């Protein structure tokens, strides 16, 4: 290829090139895994560059949804409207009762000298993409730093806890699902208050509840609700339902398989939660 300061330079072989780039990759991976802040700058830049691509990639789905909306018949809309109105009335009726109950709980907690229950502000966020990349399941939301989304924020839907925000860009954010192998949610059993932690398995339909002793009172059908310990997820939202409990005498702990209650497969919108500093005994409906 030529000479440089008396050294003859050859075009690097493929193997040399691969080894060099592999070294750079490994350095990047370690930097990203160990020192999040070092890689965040590069990552943010890439995420910003990728935003138009993501919107473009989501375009067929959003257009299809719009077209479907446009051709839905009047009768269907009227039926849906009726249904929603009825549901709304029902929920409102329940809400008034809930308001009274919340006030009572707060009053009782005051008597017990317990701190008041935290309140939450919710916002609907649209989903740009499900499952980004091979071997990972994440949601990409269309709200970002500009809408005050922050890392570690809880994300729920109408049926339970969806996950938490793990990366925030200017206009988008990424959500780790409760089924992610890295996710752990502190829970209590609704039936008897048994404390446990629910871990993801990587499959969208399966969660596991490890480290429960053989004598733990847990059975199929139990609902596990977030306990609020750990501070990421708000207390009292359903997380999972126990499907199967296997006690193998060779194992030190029970094998508990549960399924997530949030509908992780078919979302169009999810709720982002912001904790409010203090809520007096009022219900924000």
């Amino acid at each position: 290829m030529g000479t440089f300061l008396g050294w003859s330079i050859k075009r690097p072989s493929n193997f040399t090139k691969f080894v060099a780039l592999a070294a750079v990759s490994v350095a990047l991976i370690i930097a990203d895994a160990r020192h999040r802040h070092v890689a965040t700058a590069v990552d943010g830049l890439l995420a910003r560059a990728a935003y138009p691509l993501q919107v473009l990639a989501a375009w067929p789905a959003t257009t299809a949804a719009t077209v479907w909306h446009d051709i839905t018949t009047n009768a269907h809309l009227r039926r849906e409207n009726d249904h929603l109105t009825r549901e709304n009335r029902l929920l409102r009726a329940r809400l008034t009762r809930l308001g009274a109950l919340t006030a009572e709980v707060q009053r009782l907690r005051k008597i017990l000298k317990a701190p008041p229950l935290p309140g939450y502000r919710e916002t609907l966020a649209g989903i740009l993409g499900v499952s980004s990349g091979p071997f990972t399941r994440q949601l990409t939301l269309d709200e970002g730093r500009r809408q005050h989304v922050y890392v570690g924020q809880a994300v729920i839907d109408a049926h339970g806890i969806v996950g938490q925000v793990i990366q925030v860009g200017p206009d988008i954010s990424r959500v780790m699902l409760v089924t992610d192998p890295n996710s752990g949610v502190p829970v209590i059993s609704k039936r008897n208050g048994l404390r446990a932690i629910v871990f993801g398995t990587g499959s969208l339909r399966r969660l596991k509840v490890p480290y429960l002793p053989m004598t733990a009172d847990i059975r199929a059908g139990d609902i596990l609700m977030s306990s609020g310990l750990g501070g990421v997820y708000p207390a009292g939202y359903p997380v999972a339902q126990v499907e199967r409990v296997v006690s193998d005498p060779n194992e030190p702990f029970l094998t508990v398989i549960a399924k997530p209650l949030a509908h992780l497969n078919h979302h169009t919108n999810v709720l982002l939660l912001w904790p409010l500093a203090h809520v007096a005994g009022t219900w924000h409906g």
Partner: protein
Amino acid sequence: MDNLTLRQILTIAATFAVAILLGVTPTPGYAALLRPDWVAIVLVYWCIAIPERIGIGIAWLIGLLLDGLYGSLLGEQALAKAFLAYLALRFYLRLRIFPRWQQAVAVGLIIAASDVVVLMVKSLVHGSPPIWSDTAPMMINVVLWPFLFLILREVRRRARIS
């Protein structure tokens, strides 16, 4: 072996852009299992067709862009795609003369090898064990290769890239 014209470079870039878009288009949960690794297939094709032009460096850069898009660890896809390009360049003479179905299996195998790199990084860093459904996209790659090969060869001939 002349230099590529701008038009030809744009044609190659366009095939990669389409592959990347197909890779990040949102799909329902079960369909994600059947999603082939579009970028890997296109990358292997160009590595076999014009190994002097498309190589490890370009593969690495594309992998880095994918890391940004997928939200995976920075460098994870870059490492896998560089490895994939290395394997493709190592075997491109043999891959060229294989009959189509044998070629499909061989390409599927080297893509699977690069996927194993991704799974290894994931289990090393996150401690997340690979699950069986991870192998589904690897099978789809094999099934789709013959069709994509024909399409990409047509693209290459029309653009007179050699």
